[in-house]
């Protein structure tokens, strides 16, 4: 399957058949199953799904940050090189230097016993030739850039001396220290207040423009996707079930799962309609149903859905769906009968 989400120009990051499997005492569990997607230069791609859909593992797999006993296969092409096959020293140069990653919970992602200054400077030391005083100067600039007031005086502070939102800014400053060209953001706003969420998302978009970065944003929040992403890929049970431009997917979802996700988001201003909830729960990764993994929860499911797993295929330029009945789903629309 080669599901290039081609939008015309050459992608910055190209992921093909990425699979991540964990060996467990009860046999292998595939958390990410043959996932393919592209990220264009300067674009923000949203990776959307429920908890356990494999979106965070996908993100970690790109950087080979999956813990043992997980193994990653497939190809992650970055500037003509394959991150999956790359040697450790080469990978070290890419990590932090070209591709940066930020995590959901800054409290646990920042080392509690090191000053934030040191945590920025060690990144600079690994990827730049700046000397000690230049690194310090750059660290102050970075803290200033992400909106930390009185940056120069905060350099010797420890993470616990910052508030939650400020801590997330600090993490972004650390991650972006060496001018990466791709930012992998794993639910960067989930742990934050709504008002702080907006500020952090705006900061990420600003930095995207300033550094000319691409961003892969993992989130379960469709509001965040609508506000920040250019394209989105919806994940279910370790696979991408639908992808395309955010505007198109929101207007006309072709997968029943996407449709269900959209239907479960309250929309302000619109006519009052009943909120839709998706029946049932996502399957355990150790017991994914045969055929389409979504079939037990899908009102469009037929015999073929229980038998054959649909492949992700293009039905329009730049739009992909893995559903046997996607035209019927699209025809059903997003409006839910009251």
């Amino acid at each position, binding site marked *: 399957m080669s599901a290039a989400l081609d939008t015309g120009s050459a992608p910055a990051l190209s992921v093909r058949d990425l699979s991540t499997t964990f060996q467990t005492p009860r046999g292998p569990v595939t958390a990410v199953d043959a996932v393919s997607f592209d990220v264009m230069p300067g674009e923000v791609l949203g990776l959307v799904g429920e908890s356990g859909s494999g979106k965070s593992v996908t993100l970690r797999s790109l950087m080979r940050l999956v813990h043992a006993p997980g193994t990653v296969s497939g190809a992650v092409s970055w500037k003509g090189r394959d991150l999956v096959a790359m040697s450790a020293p080469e990978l070290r140069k890419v990590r932090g230097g070209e591709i940066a990653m930020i*995590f959901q919970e800054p409290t646990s*992602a920042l*080392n509690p*016993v090191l000053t934030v200054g040191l945590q920025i400077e*060690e*990144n600079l030391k690994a990827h730049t030739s700046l000397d000690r005083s230049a690194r310090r100067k750059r660290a102050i600039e970075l803290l200033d850039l992400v909106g930390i007031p009185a940056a120069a005086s905060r350099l010797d502070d420890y993470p616990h001396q910052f508030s939650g939102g400020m801590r997330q800014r600090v993490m972004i400053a650390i991650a972006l220290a060496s001018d990466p060209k791709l930012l992998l953001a794993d639910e960067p706003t989930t742990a934050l207040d709504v008002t702080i969420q907006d500020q952090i998302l705006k900061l990420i978009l600003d930095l995207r423009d300033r550094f000319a970065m691409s961003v892969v944003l993992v989130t379960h929040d469709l509001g965040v996707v609508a506000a920040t992403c250019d394209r989105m890929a919806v994940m279910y049970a370790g696979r991408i079930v639908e992808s395309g431009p955010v505007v198109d997917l929101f207007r006309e979802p072709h997968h029943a799962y996407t449709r269900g996700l959209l239907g479960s988001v309250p929309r302000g201003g619109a006519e009052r309609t009943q909120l839709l909830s998706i029946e049932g729960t996502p399957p355990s990764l150790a017991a994914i149903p045969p055929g389409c993994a979504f079939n037990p929860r899908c009102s469009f499911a037929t015999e073929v859905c229980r038998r054959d797993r649909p492949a992700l295929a293009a039905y329009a330029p730049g739009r992909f769906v893995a559903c046997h009945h996607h035209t019927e789903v699209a025809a059903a629309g997003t409006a839910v009968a009251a």
Partner: protein
Amino acid sequence: MAFLSFIFRRLLQLIPTLAFILVVIFVLVRMLPGDPASAILGDRARDADVTRINAELGLDQPIPVQFGIFLKNIATGDLGNSIHLKVSVASLIADRLPVTLMLTAMAALIALVLAVPLAFVAATRQGRVADNSIRGAFQVGLSMPVFYVGLILLTVFGAQLRWFPVGGFGSSFVDHLYHLFLPALTLALSLAAILMRNLRAAIIGVVDAEYVDFARAKGLRSRLIMTRHVLRNALISTVTLFGLQVGTLLGGAVITETVFAIPGAGRLMIDSIYGRDYPVVQGLALALAVIVSLTFLLTDIVQAWLDPRVAR
């Protein structure tokens, strides 16, 4: 700033601790069965002699007065004279305690040198052969009593192989180190086992922490990640344990000194307790208690230095 004020506050806490130690030592020594007069004079002492000795030693005074004298003497650095050895307790302690401290320090050092690298190897090869062998070996070390380990080491490396002396303390500093090596190793083994187990578990807990992933995502070298990010965080709990174990180590030194015939404070303590040599027991107990308190202080300072959240 927070660090300095933490040290100052911690120093203040030392005052009530030391006061309490003084009371406890004074009371406990007087609760020992038997009395110094009969210990000096033997079983068939005449009452008149007992009275005379008690008066000489100030033991005929009421308890609060005795405590007052005790405090005044300590304040002036006078710990009294040994009943049996007829020399000042202060000079006895000055003579014997450094031997014990040297033994303990050496044991602590050996324990750390053994425990830290092996914990690291075991933790990074969790569940594999290296991990299981290291843990198995230390399990054996931990389950054997100190005196028994001492006797084995003494027999093999002292008596048979003749690599090390079988006892004594030597005359120069290097000679001291040479004489103390086997006893220090004896003392170190069980501490090393405890530290190794604790540090191994701590490293395993830290290695999967998200901040370690974040450090990897930054492209840092593994060695830097392991030392700065993993080991430093893992050591926080081990340092606390280490500090708490120093008291145990001093207690173990008493046995070790006996097995290896080392003229240290431990043996002096045993002899003095048997001889009801109150002033010596008191003085030694005080000195050891102060040393343990200072070790705790040092432990807290090191912990606060490792973990800035402590010094708030």
